[in-house]
C-alpha cells in the first residue's frame, strides 16, 4: 500500500504530446478511476505509472520514492491487462507463481503467497488448469491474482472488464469493489465506461486530450461538474444542453433566457460575464420537468422509451440536433406527439460560460 504522486507529468511520442502537465495525488488505499473518451491518454497515464512507458518530463513518486527511472519490477506495482495476458502454457498456479519465482523467493514462500491469493480470489479449485480451460470471469480473476501475488504497493487495472459480457461485467465489478474493501490497497483503474467509474471509484479523474478535466468523488462530479465536458460525460442518459443568453448577472444570482423556456432566475454568480453573453444551460434528464404547454414555449415529444421502472421522453430541441431527454419514474402520462412546456428544476441547473467552464453557485462560494 502506498500513495502515488504525479507532478507535472508529460509524455510525448515523437511530435505528439499525449500527456500534458498532469498533477495528481492518489492517497493511500484509495480507489482512483481514470475515465475519458478513447484517445484521452488514460491508458498511457496508467502505463507511465506502471513503468511500461518512459516519462518524458515531470516526476512520479510512489510513497516517497521518485520512481521515474525504475523498471516496473522495482516500483512495486501489479497490473491487470485488458486481454488478461495470461501465460497460456502455464497453469493458474504457475501463472501466479511466475513473478514470485523470478524475484528469487523461496519455494515455501511462493507456495504460501499463491495459496493465500488463490483463497482470496476463490481460485483454489482451478490452480492446475490452463488458461484455455477457464471461463472469461475466471481468467479475469487469475489475471488479478497474478498481479496481487507479488503484494504490490499499487494495483493497476487497464480496462479489465471490457472483454466480458454485460452480466459478467456487473458481477466482476462487484468483486473488484469488494476486493478493494477487503484489502484496502491502493488501486488505479482505467475505463471508458462512466458507470464503472461511478460505481467503483473513491475518486474519479476525468481526462480529456491528455489533461485532467476534473478530479473528484462520483457525487462531486455528478452534482458539480466543473466543465461542460465532464457534465456531458458523467451520467446516463447524458445531460441536456441548451444555448442561453445572460439577461442580468450579479454576485448572488442571475437571469438567463433560453429559446423555448421562460426566463430563469438562477443562483449562479454571473457577475464576471457581460450582459447578453452566450452561455450554455445544462439540465440533467431527471431535473427537467414537463408541463402542459401554454402559449408559445412548447416542445414536441418525438419519442417515448419505456424501461419498466422509468420512462425517457425525447423532445425536439429548439437549437442543434441533439434531442432533449426528460426522465421520470414509470408510468408517465406523456405521449408521442404531445406538445409540452419545459420546467427545469432551478436548483439543479448548470450554467457554462463560452469557454465551457461551469459558473459557481453564489451561495456555495460564500460558504466556502
Amino acid at each position, binding site marked *: 500500500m502506498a500513495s502515488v504522486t504525479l507532478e507535472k507529468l508529460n509524455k510525448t511520442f515523437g511530435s505528439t504530446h499525449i500527456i500534458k502537465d498532469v498533477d495528481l495525488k492518489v492517497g493511500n488505499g484509495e480507489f482512483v478511476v481514470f475515465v475519458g473518451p478513447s484517445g484521452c491518454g488514460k491508458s498511457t497515464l496508467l502505463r507511465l505509472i506502471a513503468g511500461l512507458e518512459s516519462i518524458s518530463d515531470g516526476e512520479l513518486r510512489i510513497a516517497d520514492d521518485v520512481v521515474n527511472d525504475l523498471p516496473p519490477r522495482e516500483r512495486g506495482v501489479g497490473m491487470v491487462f485488458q*486481454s488478461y495476458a495470461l501465460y*497460456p*502454457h502455464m497453469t493458474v498456479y504457475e501463472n501466479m507463481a511466475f513473478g514470485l519465482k523470478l524475484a528469487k523467493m523461496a519455494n515455501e514462500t511462493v507456495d504460501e503467497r499463491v495459496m493465500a491469493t488463490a483463497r482470496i480470489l476463490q481460485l483454489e479449485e482451478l490452480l492446475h488448469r490452463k488458461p484455455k480451460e477457464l471461463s472469461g470471469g475466471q481468467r479475469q480473476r487469475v489475471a488479478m491474482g497474478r498481479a496481487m501475488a507479488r503484494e504490490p504497493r499499487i494495483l493497476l487495472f487497464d480496462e479489465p472488464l471490457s472483454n466480458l459480457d454485460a452480466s459478467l461485467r456487473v458481477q466482476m465489478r462487484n468483486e473488484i469493489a469488494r476486493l478493494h474493501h477487503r484489502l484496502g490497497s491502493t488501486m488505479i483503474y482505467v475505463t471508458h465506461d462512466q458507470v464503472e467509474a461511478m460505481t467503483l471509484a473513491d475518486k474519479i479523474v476525468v481526462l480529456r486530450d491528455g489533461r485532467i478535466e476534473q478530479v473528484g468523488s462520483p457525487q462531486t462530479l455528478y452534482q458539480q461538474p466543473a466543465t461542460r465536458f465532464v457534465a456531458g460525460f458523467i451520467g446516463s442518459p447524458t445531460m441536456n444542453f441548451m444555448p442561453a443568453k445572460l439577461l442580468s448577472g450579479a454576485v448572488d444570482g442571475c437571469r438567463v433566457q433560453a429559446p423555448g423556456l421562460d426566463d430563469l432566475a438562477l443562483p449562479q454568480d454571473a457577475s464576471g460575464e457581460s450582459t447578453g453573453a452566450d452561455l450554455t444551460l445544462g439540465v440533467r434528464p431527471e431535473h427537467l420537468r414537463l408541463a402542459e404547454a401554454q402559449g408559445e414555449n412548447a416542445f414536441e415529444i418525438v419519442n417515448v422509451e419505456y424501461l419498466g421502472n422509468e420512462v425517457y421522453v425525447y423532445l425536439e430541441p429548439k437549437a442543434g440536433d441533439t434531442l432533449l431527454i426528460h426522465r421520470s419514474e414509470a408510468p408517465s402520462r406523456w405521449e408521442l406527439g404531445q406538445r409540452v412546456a419545459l420546467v427545469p428544476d432551478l436548483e439543479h441547473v448548470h450554467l457554462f460560460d463560452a469557454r465551457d467552464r461551469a459558473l459557481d453557485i453564489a451561495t456555495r462560494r460564500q460558504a466556502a
Partner: protein
Amino acid sequence: MNQYQLIKLAKRVGFYTLIAVVMVYAIFPFYYAVITSLKPSGDLFRVDFWLSTVDFGNYVQIFTQKSFVRAIFNSIIVSLSVVFIALLLGITASYALGRVRFRGRTTVMLVILGVSMFPQVAVLSGLFEVIRGLGLYNNPAGLILSYTIFTLPFTVWVLTTFMKQLPMELEEAAIMDGATPWVTITKVFLPLMWPAMATTGLLAFIAAWNEFLFALTFTLTDDQRTVPVAIALISGGSQHELPWGPIMAASVTVTVPLVILVMIFQKRIVSGLTAGAVKG
C-alpha cells in the same frame, strides 16, 4: 438411382481418382527406389512392380563401407548443428526484429531476405575463399557455417512473423512480473513458438541434410563427407557400371530419418499453442 445421385457418385469417383493419381505421382519414385534397393544385383534391370524376393545385400554392402557410416554420422552432426544455431540466432533475432522498435528495422529485414535470393553457385567461390581463410576447408564446421548462412534468412523471417503475432500484452505482463528480455524469450515466448520452431527447424534440417553442392566443394576426404556426396561417389566394380542397388539402398536409408521427423513434428506444426492466451 436418379440423376442427382449419379452426379454425386461421379464426383466422388473423380475425386478419389484424382487423389490416386497424385499419390502415385508423388510416391512412385520412392516406392521404386525401395523395391530396387531390396533386389539382388542380378535382378536389377528386370522391371518389377511388386517385390518377389527380399534381399538385404545392398544394405549390408553400404553399411559395411566405413566411409558411408561415417558420412551419415557427419550429416547428423552438421544438420543438427545447423538447426540448433539457426534456431538460436533466429529466435533472438526475431525478438529484436519483431519486438524492439529501432531505426532501420525494415532495412535489416529486407537485407536478410535479399541474401537468401542469391543462388548457391553465385556465392560458391567467395564462400570457398572465406572457408579456406578461416581454416575450415575439409571440415564439417565449414559446412555448418555455409548452411547456416542459407538457412537463417528463412528462419528469421518465419520466426519474426510469428513473434509479431504474439500479443504485446503478454510481453508486458512478463515485464510487470520482473522478467528480463532473455527470461521473456525463454520462459514465455519459446513455449508458445514450438509450432513455428518445429516447422523452421525441420526445413533447416532437410536443407542441410540434402545439400550437395557445398558439401562436394568444401570437403575433400571420405571421412569428412556428408551423405549426399557419399551416395554420389558410390562407385561400382568398373568404370562402366553404376551400382544402382547400393545407391538406392543408401538413398532409402537417408530418407527414412526425414520421414520419421516429419511424422513426429506434424502435429506440433499444425497445433496452435497460443489458444487461450488472450480472450477467446
